[in-house]
């Protein structure tokens, strides 16, 4: 695997191999010294044109556990100066001898552009590009669902027949896209629930069913319910009237959570808006996978960095 740009182009075999490798990486964390020498001498650059402390820290932890050097360029600090182009920044860090670039960028397609540009030789890992994809988030969600369902017996398994419902701002969500492609590739049945304004206008090419009724979705007892974060700007640009109405119609309130199937797990990519798309009752319950998602994120990113940096990953078959 030279780059990881999207989950759209991952095969089921490749996806399961990444999840299995992440299981191995997770085992490392349980050791007395949770560190592997695998990527010693390699340098990973976190190139964040958009602020995301959570994702950046997760990639940093993953790289360090594999003994790689980490350089961080963040829009928040001074290292990515305002207005500096993707090309110039990428070439600058490439000149420092970087083996992989973890790119977060507000523009859809930025990772694909960087990988295909010829500006740099380094591997590119998409850490979120605009409203396009966030493939490591999709992978960690799939991993988390599999782990909850199969525990120690997860290795080698796909998600055949697992029913996952994703609720919220689908149209602007890179998390939703990466999950839709990956989960359906793994055999899951994916359904989407959102107001019509937040569903893509034409999703006939998407391998999903779509609806507007969260109560009906809950009554259908899915295996996993994924609540997406609502951005305040969606309200101001008229996608829905106000927070109250959104929470009433599409929020996982305590009352709705009480009606949720006993074995339905609840996911959220974070950061959560408690009281809006998710209640504390749901977020803090035993059925919540939210903290496992964070833990698993490090394992997934270790696996991905290992695959793009080790050259031979055996997933080309």
């Amino acid at each position, binding site marked *: 695997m030279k780059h990881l740009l999207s989950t*759209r182009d991952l095969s089921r075999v490749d996806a399961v191999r990444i999840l299995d490798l992440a299981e191995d990486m997770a085992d490392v964390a349980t050791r007395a010294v949770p560190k592997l020498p695998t990527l010693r001498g390699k340098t990973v650059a976190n190139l964040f044109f958009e602020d995301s402390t959570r994702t950046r820290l997760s990639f940093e932890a993953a790289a360090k556990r594999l003994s790689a050097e980490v350089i961080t360029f963040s829009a928040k600090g001074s290292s990515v100066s305002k207005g500096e*182009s*993707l*090309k110039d920044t990428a070439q600058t860090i490439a000149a420092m001898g970087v083996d992989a670039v973890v790119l977060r*960028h*507000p*523009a*859809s*397609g*930025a990772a*694909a*552009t960087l990988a*295909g*540009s010829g500006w740099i030789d380094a591997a590119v890992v998409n850490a979120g*590009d*605009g*409203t*396009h*994809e966030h493939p490591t988030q999709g992978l960690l969600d799939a991993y988390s669902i599999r782990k909850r369902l199969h525990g120690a017996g997860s290795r080698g398994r796909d998600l055949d027949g697992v029913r996952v419902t994703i609720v919220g701002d689908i*149209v602007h969500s*890179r998390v939703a*896209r990466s999950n839709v492609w990956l989960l359906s590739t793994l055999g899951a049945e994916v359904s989407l629930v959102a107001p019509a304004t937040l569903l*893509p*206008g*034409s*999703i*006939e*090419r*998407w391998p999903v069913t779509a609806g507007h009724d969260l109560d009906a979705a809950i009554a259908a007892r899915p295996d996993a319910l994924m609540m997406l974060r609502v951005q305040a700007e969606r309200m101001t640009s008229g996608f829905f009237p106000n927070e109250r109405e959104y929470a009433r119609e599409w929020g996982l309130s305590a009352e709705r959570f009480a009606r949720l199937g006993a074995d339905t797990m609840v996911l959220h990519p974070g950061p959560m808006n408690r009281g809006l798309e998710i209640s504390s009752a749901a977020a803090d319950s035993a059925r919540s996978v939210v903290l496992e998602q964070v833990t698993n994120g490090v394992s997934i990113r270790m696996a991905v960095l290992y695959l793009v940096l080790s050259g031979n990953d055996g997933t080309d078959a």
Partner: protein
Amino acid sequence: MTQHLLITAATLPDGTRADLRVQDGAIVETGSGLSADGGRVIDADGLQALPGLVDLHTHLREPGFEQSETVLTGTRAAAAGGFTVVHAMANTLPVQDTAGVVEQVASLGAQHGYATVRPVGAVTVGLGGERLSEIGAMAASRAAVRVFSDDGKCVSDALLMRRALEYVKTFDGVVAQHAQEPRLTEGAQMNEGALSSELGLAGWPAVAEESIIARDVLLAQHVGARLHICHVSTAGSVDIVRWAKARGIDVTAEVTPHHLLLTEQLAATYDPHYKVNPPLRREEDVLALRAALADGTIDIVATDHAPHPVEAKECAWPEAAVGMVGLESALAVVQEAMVETGLLDWSGVARVLSTTPARIGRVTGYDAPLAVGSPANITLVDAAARSDFDVARLHGMSVNSPFLGRSLPGRVMAVVHDGRPTVLDGALLEPAEVTTA
């Protein structure tokens, strides 16, 4: 300065062959076995003769954006593509909204000599969409402006559009509308549909174009004015224009070469060379546009030649500038999309790329193409040629063509502008050989 030329054995648009003798800027004799009379002979045996091409929609960028294009480089690109007239859009800096600016642009064109430059006047002051610009002054100026457009921006205010249509009528002008409802296209990046959803690029919905066209044809009918629609890009727009023409509304429409050949699927590469406004659409739109051009619903092809410096396209898609250069590739693309497919013959090409755009722009001398007495504006094409379109074919300042590397038919071998060659033996002449200054 007068030149005597004899073009021998050219194939005319109607398929017949003839010699054309040119003297003092005009075609003075046609027939066979004509004498060169001591003038230069252009052997056109096997070449297709067309009237000089007329582009109703060109961005020359001067004054103000000379890092992208100038009147000189843009008209060199025009000549290389077979054009003898270009209409220079108003989104310069300063904007072409006064007599002074349009006269300056027109005179630069006249001085360089590669093509006649007909400036387009802004409809509103500074393209601001609020107050009418000095349309009368521009019409009465030495530039004799007849086409008015805020291109790049839509005249979206309905009352202002009504007034513009009415006022421009006073001067036998036409408003060329860039049909794009601004609120429906905020942040828009590509055609709205299943693919834009997948790619996470904000959609530019067809309805944003079609709703403005529907409103404007009704306004044109209401006030009895002439209306021109720029770069029609959707099957739905074609339906509305067809309906309007059937009702007798005085509307004309253009399509760009790229909308006749390329589809939105190219956006999946995230290569900003395919980013353009209006965006590339679906295959069914492309087919509807071709059919509409063939049956006359769409009147003309116009390039929307939009040069940008390299850095404006060397970035992520949403950050890239919109637009493509098109003058040098237009005829080849029309041949590929319309002639090779049997939808248009060469007289049809002459109609959509010369006679009709000249009529819409009120450009004189193009109503009797290649006839004795007409000004000598002639383009000779080797229609049998085919090659990969490469950067050597581009003669403007910018190279943001979506056609680079694509196999295209036809090659412009010679161009005569007002009796003087600008292209000979397939090569663009140097400025000193062309200038009239």
